């Protein structure tokens, strides 16, 4: 433990300059990666015959140009903050949760079921009920790979990928079967609309869901660095064997971490249902969980890094249509830029070489530890 905490104390004690340098060391790689991606994106735009200036200004107009645009950006960023938190949180315990997508889908459909299945509740009860129901569904679904890893040694990367497929098909079945919208004439696979009392409102141009997501980031940060549990989780992530030797119940921590990770992803799905879509409809939550991996890496797996990372990707998603309309650029270009950002963050040697920075151990991200119990 101690080196890290001592480091932290030293830094706080030393000059502000040192603290700034520390922050800079944390954010320099992602920021440079973004800038590099934007520049390469501009070159690609030029080669494809479009004007990068027109394209990027349309992108900015579509994501920050007016109140609606800002609301759209925040709306797009909300599930990304939560799925990013889910992935980042699991990283801290050395677990690579690729199953955020599946956990998010369960959160979305359970929130929808609680939203349309119950009527006559006041919003103050109905909103949290559906929200926590969805989050709990995500948590339970996240607990499965955690338990599998603990008791059978099955690697969570494989089980979570497989469980994503299971989640897609179960939710599709529910939306096209028992929970299908039976209003006259409907042939589309989707659940009924949720009751108005379950809808998460917007405050001005700020979706309340985004506020909740930021709150979740703060709680995650507090849990990780200011509680015993957080200390245990991080210790397991650094070295499960040493943690076991130190008396930490690694099995329990593994399951609990996956549960909490699933809880965050499930909450992301619930907010999508209650704040954006208004029902569960297959195909509406595609890729949100997978984007979480991008966000977590871009945010350097820190809860507070996740928020700007999600805002950046959310803004690119929000502005993509405008870019297509104004500049005639296929919106795949935003995918290309996103992929380039991830590439430069992952291959940070390139960025470090550009910045002439040496790697220090504290900045390394533990993606995943070995195969279960060894």
């Amino acid at each position, binding site marked *: 433990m101690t080196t890290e905490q001592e480091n932290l104390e030293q830094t706080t004690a030393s000059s502000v300059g040192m603290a*700034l340098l520390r922050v*800079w060391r944390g954010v320099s790689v992602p920021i440079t990666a973004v800038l590099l991606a934007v520049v390469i994106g501009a070159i690609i735009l030029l080669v494809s015959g479009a004007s990068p200036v027109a394209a990027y200004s349309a992108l900015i107009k579509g994501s920050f140009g007016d109140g609606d645009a*800002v609301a759209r950006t925040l709306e797009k960023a909300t599930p990304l903050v939560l799925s990013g938190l889910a992935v980042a949180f699991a990283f801290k315990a050395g677990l690579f949760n690729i199953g955020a997508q599946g956990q998010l889908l369960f959160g979305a459909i359970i929130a929808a079921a609680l939203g349309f299945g119950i009527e006559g509740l006041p919003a103050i009860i109905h909103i949290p009920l559906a929200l926590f129901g969805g989050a709990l569904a995500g948590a339970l679904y996240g607990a499965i790979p955690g338990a599998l890893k603990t008791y059978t040694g099955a690697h969570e990367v494989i089980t979570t990928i497989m469980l994503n497929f299971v989640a897609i098909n179960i939710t599709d079945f529910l939306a096209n079967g028992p929970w299908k919208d039976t209003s006259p004439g409907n042939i589309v696979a989707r659940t009924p609309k949720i009751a108005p009392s379950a809808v998460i409102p917007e405050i001005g*141009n*700020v979706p309340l869901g985004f506020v909740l997501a930021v709150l979740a980031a703060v709680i995650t940060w507090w849990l990780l660095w200011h509680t015993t549990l957080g200390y245990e989780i991080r210790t397991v992530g650094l070295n499960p064997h040493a943690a076991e030797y130190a008396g930490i119940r690694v099995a329990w921590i593994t399951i609990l971490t996956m549960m909490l990770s699933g809880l965050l992803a499930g909450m992301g799905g619930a907010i999508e249902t209650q704040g954006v879509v208004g029902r569960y409809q297959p195909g509406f939550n595609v890729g949100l969980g997978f984007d979480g991996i991008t966000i977590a890496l871009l945010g350097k797996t820190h809860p507070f890094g996740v928020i700007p990372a999600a805002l950046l990707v959310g803004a690119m998603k929000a502005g993509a*249509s405008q870019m297509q309309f104004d500049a005639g650029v296929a919106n795949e270009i935003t995918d290309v830029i996103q992929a380039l950002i991830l590439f430069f963050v992952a291959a940070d040697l390139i960025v470090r070489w550009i910045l002439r920075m040496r790697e220090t151990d504290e900045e390394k991200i533990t993606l995943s530890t070995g195969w279960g119990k060894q």
Partner: protein
Amino acid sequence: MKKRTALLTTFLLLLALLLVACGGGGEEPAANEGSTTTTEETTNEEATNEEATNEETTTEETGEADCASEEVFCVGLVTDVGEIDDKSFNQSAWEGVKRAEAELGAKIDFIETKDAKDYATNIGLFADNGYDVIVTVGFALGEATAEAAAAHPDIFFIGVDQFQAWPFDDDASNDLPNLAGLIFPEDKAGFLAGALAGMMTESNTIAAVLGTDLVPPVVAFKEGYEAGARFVNPDINIISTYHPGGLDVAFTDPEWGASTAKQAIDQGADVVFGAGGKTGNGAIIEVANHEGVYCIGVDTDQWETVPEAHPCLISSAMKLITPGVFDLISAAKDGNFPAGNFVGEVGLAPFHDFDSVIPQEVKDRLNEIDTGLRDGSIETGYNPGG
């Protein structure tokens, strides 16, 4: 130490940049609220910020001003999640819009939807820029289209594959006068394809490789196909397989289509119907590698769009989307727009090179069935939505 100072300076500069950017973003909602309530309580900083935004919007508006004027007829198309050149329904609808450009002198544009939550945003981009007709493609856009039609009574909306007979408030008496759903009896096209398959099979086993059952037209094609095959050949063995994945992959998985088609052929099928975008295309292209096995395409005459399937493609179960879209656009232009549901044409594509292979009695029987389906003496038994 020098290096560190340099680093710090760079960082501070970047931080400044970031703060400006974030500040701009953060203030935006406040600024906007101010302008809607016309109180305009903005600080100097924000004012400059807002001015910049305003300037941008005005230049933009002059750029698109031609669509807002009465003389210019503008048609916009919003695709479902998918690509405009999908060789299937998005493309067929776009062909219809392009015909409007050529024959009606319309100014046209399209937006490809990438995220299903952007339907309303994408429709709104056309609506806010003064487009006269907006075509939305795919059943999933139905709700967003109906809501946009209610909000923009001066714009005509055409929803391909959307039941728009009842408006979104479920009251059938107030059909929106500016909203038409272009729908197709896919089950009838499937019925004809099934009848053709049922008569052409020698192994008495036929197959269908399908996109997901989450998409109603696919279900209609399948049910019609099976009913048609049983109509001509009651003891026929039919292997129908839906793609097991979600909507994001069900129509873009040619590998699955190919392996599923091969599996069906291994089980004795000698006619394969591929219905499901690129997934179905994968199936019929696979069939082309197997001698003595026929394939049937979907949506458009795939003889034109999937030349790789020429060795096996005896016909396609067509939805005539292109003429349907064009007819509705010209009706909108002429001021006799039909509200509610507009039923488009379906049918079998020409046999092309297989014209000589298909016996005359099969062709006669198909004509007979086609007539029967049209006058209602033959029913496919498919009844969506109860």
